[in-house]
């Protein structure tokens, strides 16, 4: 593997993980904002 090949692969993997994380968190976040997460005060209290 050439040096530039390794650099490209490393940055590619890192960017993929960063983008993927943003996407996953963002989708879940938007879904909660739109539809609520079904949390009644009670169930959140018991979870702690």
């Amino acid at each position, binding site marked *: 593997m050439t040096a530039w090949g390794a650099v490209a692969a490393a940055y590619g*993997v*890192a960017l993929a*993980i960063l983008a993927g994380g943003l996407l996953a968190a963002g989708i879940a976040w938007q*879904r909660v904002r739109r*539809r609520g997460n079904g949390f009644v005060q009670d169930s959140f209290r018991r979870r702690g």
Partner: protein
Amino acid sequence: MTSPSARLAGFARPPRLAALCDRLVPWAGGLFVLCLAAALVYALAVAPPDYRQGEAVRILALSLPAAWMAVAVYVLAALLGAAGLTRDRPLVFAAARAALAPGAAFALIAVAAHVLWGRPAWNAWWEWDGRSAFLVLLLLLYLGAGLPARDGDSRRLALLLAAGALALPFLRIATDWWVALHRPEGVLPLGDEPGDAADPLALILMLGAFKAWFLTVWLMRFSAALPRGPEGSP
């Protein structure tokens, strides 16, 4: 344990907290994009290649900050967990839980970057040096924290995080010592860490980008975990 009215008083704030987080997210995201652009441009184009490691030194701008973030986030989660244990506030536990997944992502990036950095240098896909061993153990600590995090048992999660965070310095020392014990003579001149060759500005820029990314993702996850009224209204 606490009176119902006291608990309710504590919960009067989450909707406003969620609204605050929601407003901060775009700013954090924008900051991330800016920092990332600067870091990428600098690390890939502007910084000079190392006279010994060649272009591969650019990967260090990924693996070193990612490793630092992975450790820092774990310690942050452990501190939040400890705070949650002493004050018994579910919000603090939620903040700790929200930080774990992005922290694990950093550990993954660090391992992948380290492997790809080592490939040109070692001519092998994996070498158990101090950094690799430490990162694998850190990944296991994140995995271990991820399992009870789903269960919802916050107190034990906090204890687990505390034990892991306290173990981290011992792990670093132990892996370094173990590797030094087995290092054949003359492979590396003493006091010459391969990581020293990384360009400091590249490291700082990438670290800034990582911190902004963490802030964005953490805010989103924390906000999503907060209790809201029906229809997601804060």
